[in-house]
């Protein structure tokens, strides 16, 4: 049974219809990569699943339950997590306050425990607990955002272009953490990635969106080897 199933999803913002009839599934411990040209609806797909964009029709099934109409804060409570592309940490709050905010839905004692646990995996944060998040570098912020996501121990994590604007070495670190999430912690991941090659190399399955419609859905490796689609939409040479 798939962890997440999206059926005939139509979504957008107000009157701006962006996604048309999306159908796809995400199995447990899978990395699904969403790629596509700018403005193809990659981010909107994540937002629609999480309840931030407006869903006009279709269903979102999570763990066999229809969650299409749940508000975002309720989705956060049942094991979904979403990392926005930008502004994904609270810049004006300290690192510690950010981590505690991330455990907002949990009992206080559990938050303490989880913060300790997450700091073990992200040791660089230990020395920065009292610093405001705005003092962190771009890569550090992405890792803090990821650490925040883990506080709630979600089952499904959706990343929106986590490597955008990062130096190659920082991007590599972020990608390695994502693979670690799946392999070591058994998380299921949906990753929207602007660097198609990088994304497809780590993805199990891939979804290529073009103008809000699915142009390819299948094994990530297959899309990587599909010269026509790669050249047309993903800027993959040859």
């Amino acid at each position, binding site marked *: 049974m798939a962890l997440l199933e999206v059926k005939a999803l139509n979504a957008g913002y*107000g009157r701006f219809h962006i996604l048309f009839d999306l159908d796809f599934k995400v199995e447990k411990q899978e990395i699904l990569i969403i790629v596509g040209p700018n403005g193809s609806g990659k981010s909107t797909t994540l937002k629609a699943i*999480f309840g*931030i964009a407006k869903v006009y029709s279709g269903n979102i099934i999570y763990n066999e339950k229809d969650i299409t109409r749940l*508000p*975002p*804060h309720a989705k*956060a*409570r049942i094991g979904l*997590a*979403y990392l*926005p592309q930008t*502004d*994904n*940490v*609270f*810049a*004006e*709050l300290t690192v510690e*306050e950010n981590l*505690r*905010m*991330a455990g*907002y*839905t949990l009992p*206080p004692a559990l938050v303490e425990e989880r913060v300790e646990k997450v700091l073990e995996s992200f040791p660089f944060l230990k020395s920065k607990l009292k610093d405001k998040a705005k003092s962190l570098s771009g890569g550090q912020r992405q890792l803090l955002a990821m650490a*925040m996501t883990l506080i*709630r121990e979600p089952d499904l994590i959706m990343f929106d272009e986590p490597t955008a604007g990062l130096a190659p070495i920082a991007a590599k670190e972020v990608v390695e953490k994502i693979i670690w999430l799946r392999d070591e912690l058994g998380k299921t991941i949906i990753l929207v990635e602007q660097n198609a090659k990088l994304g497809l190399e780590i993805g199990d399955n891939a979804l290529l969106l073009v103008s809000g419609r699915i142009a390819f859905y299948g094994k990530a490796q297959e899309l990587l080897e599909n010269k026509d689609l790669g050249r047309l939409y993903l800027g993959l040479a040859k």
Partner: protein
Amino acid sequence: MVEIIPSGVFLMSAIAYAAALGLLSMGLSLTYVTTRVANFAHATIGMLGAIVMLFLIDRVYYEGASYQLFIVGPLLSFVVAGVFAMIMYLLVMKPLQDKGNDVIGLMIATFAIDIILLNILSFLLNAMTGKHLPKLYGVNIGPWDPTIQCCGLELKASNFVLPIAAVLLTLIFHLFLTKTKFGVAMRATIENPNLAAVMGVNTNLVYTVSWFVSGALAGVAGSLIAFSLKDTSPNSSALIIVSVFAGSIVGGLTSIYWGLVGGFIVGLAEKLLTSIINALYNGYFAPALGLPEIAIINYEKVMSLGLVIIVLLFAPQGLAGVDWSKLKQKILRR
């Protein structure tokens, strides 16, 4: 010889007025940063506090000045005005916002609520007769403000209680925002509502609470400022709201704490600057230059609004937008 330095009594009343404006401006900034509503009904909501005082005096404390009134009154006003603001948000502002109205539409709606509330209150106060007071509309409750002997001065109790209440409430609110889970969630929601929702924060609850707090702070300010008004009628809010907005704008509208500072500065400017300029002009310039006397003391609002223009010319984002550490370095370098 004309006195340019204001008397201690006047100074204390100016500080009290400034503290009230600080509380009001802080509340105004709060609902602005959370829900993007510039609430023109804010001062009238504050006047609910004055009306609570009026009723307390009419029903309970009619026999004369009582210190107890200064504890019961502000507390009751805190609840009454807070609950009203909360209901106003849930019943009017939120549905309008959900329908997609923008900042301007919402602002106009607050104008409407202000006028409706003013008229209802005026009507009720005019129609009702007091139990012990001869009337309820336009009563001067000044006589119920006990006089305190301090430092050789005769000071009014409300002038003491207001600054204390302002400091206390700000402190409590600050602790709430930094030490409680919900307070941190509130700051998080102010900064990034979508992300806060992603973390599981019920942002609607945060907005509702922010309206309650905003109204409650206004209620306390209104209940205590009522003693220095010539008459306790809801219409006093029409003049106060101008200064409240001036305070929030001087503060920058984007910061709760700077709203408090802005309100305080505007309050002091209105009272002290006008008094000093009045003394200087009528005491020295007018006689020396043969100019007619002008009661500059009556033009308080020119001060507050003038201050808004000056601050915005030098700091378009208000005081909150000033890079103070940079400014300090600049000054020190000289």
